[in-house]
């Protein structure tokens, strides 16, 4: 387990290193440049040049990369050119907000999705199964932005029940904070629920056909024990993996949902950075988002290994 974890961490570091080069190069290749962004409309060439020199943009690429990478290794993500502030605090704040969204959405998805999946598997072919399948089809059928718009329309504009955008720090009270989360969370849940429910259903169906479930029944265990203790524990393995990956995805910035709900998370920060051509901010955001995504994937794999005694012990043994 430890060896496995170490190996994965080494890989992660390598991947992130390669990625940092890639991100740096791609962002450099972007059209338009910061200096003229800052200089604004119709600024003369001298102005642009002056800004370039001031920001060190006239240096060779390698020097720029080296400076940037060295900074990151020391925990310095650089300064946003447009916001003229250190990036780290801005990014961390956005990350924290995305984290809130991800955790809440994921908890709801996990609880509801797994419950629905189990229900459908146990009632396979019956009405409940068909209902779950039908509803989950609906969930994936419509893109997230469409759900988001519908939710804004219904809950915000017609029913006037919930705020349709923005974010309130929890310091301003739990209810305002929670009410701002409802719609984005519901949208995310609608998107992710179907997958989790279907996945749980299918792995549950597989597990219910295994010999050990049959043997548990042969021992006269009540159906509830068979399903919850014997089947679910094993059926959840693939679900856990997907949940962790989903977590990474949400953390990584659900650009569209954050845009529609004006939720100031990583996704909007990135879009903002791209639109303003704020290279350091783009680079830092992509790097952090990707690192978060990779870490979530890693966690998924480790979690999988940990929950699965076979792998957990297999790794200890070897």
């Amino acid at each position, binding site marked *: 387990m430890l*060896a496995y974890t170490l190996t994965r961490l080494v890989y992660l570091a390598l991947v992130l290193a390669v990625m940092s080069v890639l991100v740096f190069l791609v962002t450099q290749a972007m059209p338009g440049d910061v200096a003229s962004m800052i200089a604004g409309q119709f600024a003369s060439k001298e102005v642009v040049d002056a800004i370039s020199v001031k920001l060190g943009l006239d240096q060779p690429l390698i020097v720029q990369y080296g400076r940037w990478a060295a900074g990151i290794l020391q925990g310095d993500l650089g300064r946003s050119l447009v916001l003229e502030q250190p990036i780290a605090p801005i990014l961390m704040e956005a990350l924290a907000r995305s984290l809130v969204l991800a955790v809440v959405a994921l908890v709801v998805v996990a609880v509801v999705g797994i419950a629905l999946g189990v229900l459908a598997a146990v009632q396979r072919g019956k009405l409940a199964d068909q209902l779950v399948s039908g509803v989950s089809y609906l969930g994936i059928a419509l893109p997230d932005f469409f759900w988001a718009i519908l939710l804004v329309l219904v809950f915000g504009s017609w029913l006037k029940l919930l705020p349709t955008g923005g974010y309130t720090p929890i310091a301003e009270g739990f209810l305002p904070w929670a009410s701002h989360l409802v719609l984005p969370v519901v949208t995310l849940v609608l998107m992710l629920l179907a997958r989790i429910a279907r996945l749980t259903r299918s792995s549950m169906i597989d597990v219910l056909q295994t*010999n*050990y*479930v049959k*043997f548990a029944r042969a*021992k006269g265990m009540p159906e509830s024990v068979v399903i919850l*203790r*014997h089947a679910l*524990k094993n059926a959840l393995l693939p679900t856990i993996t997907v949940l962790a990956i989903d977590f990474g995805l949400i953390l990584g910035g659900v650009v569209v949902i954050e845009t529609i709900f004006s939720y100031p998370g990583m996704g909007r920060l990135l879009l903002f950075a791209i639109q303003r051509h704020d290279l350091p901010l783009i680079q830092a955001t992509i790097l952090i988002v990707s690192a978060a995504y990779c870490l979530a994937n890693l966690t998924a794999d480790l979690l999988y290994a940990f929950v699965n005694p076979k792998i957990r012990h*297999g790794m200890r043994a070897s």
Partner: protein
Amino acid sequence: MPPVTLPEPAPLLDVRGLTISYGNARGTLRAASDVSFAIRPGEVMGLVGESGSGKSTIAMAILDLLGGGGRVESGEILFDGTDLRKLPPSGRRALRGDRIAAVFQDPFTSLNPALTVGRQIAEPLIQHKGFSPRQAAVRVEELLAEVGIRDPRRVAAAYPHELSGGMQQRALIATALGCEPKLLILDEPTTALDVTVEARIIELLAKLCDSHKLSALFVSHNLGIVNRICETVTVLYGGVVVETGRTGRVLSRPAHPYAKGLVAALPRITADRRHRLPSIPGTVAKLTGAPAACVFAPRCPFAEETCRSQPQAMLTNGDGSEDGVRCWKAGALAGTPWPDEEAGVSRRPTARTPTATHSAPLVEVDHLRKIYGASRSILPWLRRAGTVAVDDVSFTIGRGEVVGVVGESGSGKSTIGRALLALTEPTAGAVLFDGADLTEQVKSGNQDLRRRAQLVFQNSAASLNPRKTVGAAMDRPLVLAGREDAEERRKTVAGLLTRVGLPAAYADRYPHELSGGERQRVNIARALATDPDFVVCDEAVSALDVSVQANILNLLAELRDEMGLSYLFITHDIAVVSHIADRVLVVYGGTICEEGPIGRVLRPPYHPYTEALLSAVPRLAGDGPEAPRILLEDAVAAPGGRGCAFAARCPRKLGAVCDEQSPPVHETADGHRIACHIPLATLAERAAVFPELAGADATPG
């Protein structure tokens, strides 16, 4: 028979007229038709029959665990006088695991990988007997000790994958025994295990049934094992009970033609080597409705017109004994054995048999060594020594010779076979084929030599590309051999199919349209298409039913005789090896522990492992007296140590020397070698496991 007729005790389980069918979108299939049998208290009944005959279906119906659209259509299942079918599901569940317990075939999948073994054993105790978890834990350790586990506490805390197959099966048996059930349902409880482990489990079950006065329904296709522990036996064919009676009688004097065939087709160590095995032609019946005639009639050599037009009734002696047979000709056939076309006719010796072994060998294996999974990563924690699958193995195969390889699972048999075909690169040592280094040849892109060596696989289904017709699969080797004329190739394919006993029209079929036996024939035909000199048969008959196995063994023997092929015949069934091989290698933990002509290996002196293997071979009533069994520990030693690989499990271990030094090789006559620290003379003192063989093979085969 006791002189006084005591009133027969009422049966514990009485199955009457049980009819079960599976229904799905493609129609219904009747897996059991009008099945009746009874098990008295304290009695173990065997339920035998070939694959698909409905054995498991019946067992599951008793447990109310029929899955996948299975439905009991009619009949009664009386347990202790109550019809289980009339009980509500909760009532049946309460019986399950409490008064009726079960053990299934595959221990590897019957235990929940996510829960500790102890917890799984404790569950029924808590559920049915109201134990507290603490009480249950105490009882679990007692139970584990009772099934012969020496370290119950550790095993109870272990996860299933940390245990060997034998230990897992013991744990399952312990689970079944926990609530002191009255009836045990055992569905092939040893099929997935190695022979030596199987022997121990059977021993244990026999002992437990005795001491606990258990009744059991023992499902098996292994007649030898049934003979060992069942008082009565019920023979199933196509979902119909064709014969039932006391085990001794049924297996020594079967009355139903099918039972006759089944008994006859079994390869036996004691039988005359190289004879043709009687077999049952055709494939098992698939029933879709109530049988309108004898189910066995299409395959029965004694069948008459009436057999094909009238359903058969169960005939009993009427004397109160359990004997019954579903064949109206049973009386007339009483003395007639299963017909064997070549009975008594010894195989004609062919041009290239044993004499050829004296010329240059076809295959030479020289200090072969194979290590899997060794890695030299730059990351220090990833460096691994790897598994030693084959450790310093040398032997030769002569032209026209059949060399058998026996050994338990994981002993490196397949690895040897693959190395011989250059499918895996040896870590050390060399394989010479007809004088040339095969691995080098293949590496340098020369495939000609390799075509002369072919492989027949165990899993007949996976060895054929599901998207290619039989004809297409066989056509390719011919194309590669440079045969350009398509018409001519087609003829060759047809010829090869005929050669392996299949209609030429099968060329247009897809693999899934064939039965297992037919697929194995296609595999053989395909291997023959490159016109090889040498064929590796890796468990080529292990997955087949006895009668089909006999078929294929006969075919392989025929091909050897007619085409002068050499085989490396890999199997875990020593009886099969004794039937087909000229010489045999006994491998253990990647090393050869004994090697020699088959006749020699079956007689003392033995390597202790060979002795244990032989003593574990189950035998039928007519095969002579049972020898005392040599039971091995479950533990599997990791191969590749410095000493004797078998030392850890050896019942005759001498001491530290076995662990520390590799054993010397004793050579007796005729190339018979034994690698063991025990002096040859001491080894020779042992009594023969099969005394009847003692003088039989005086002239070396």
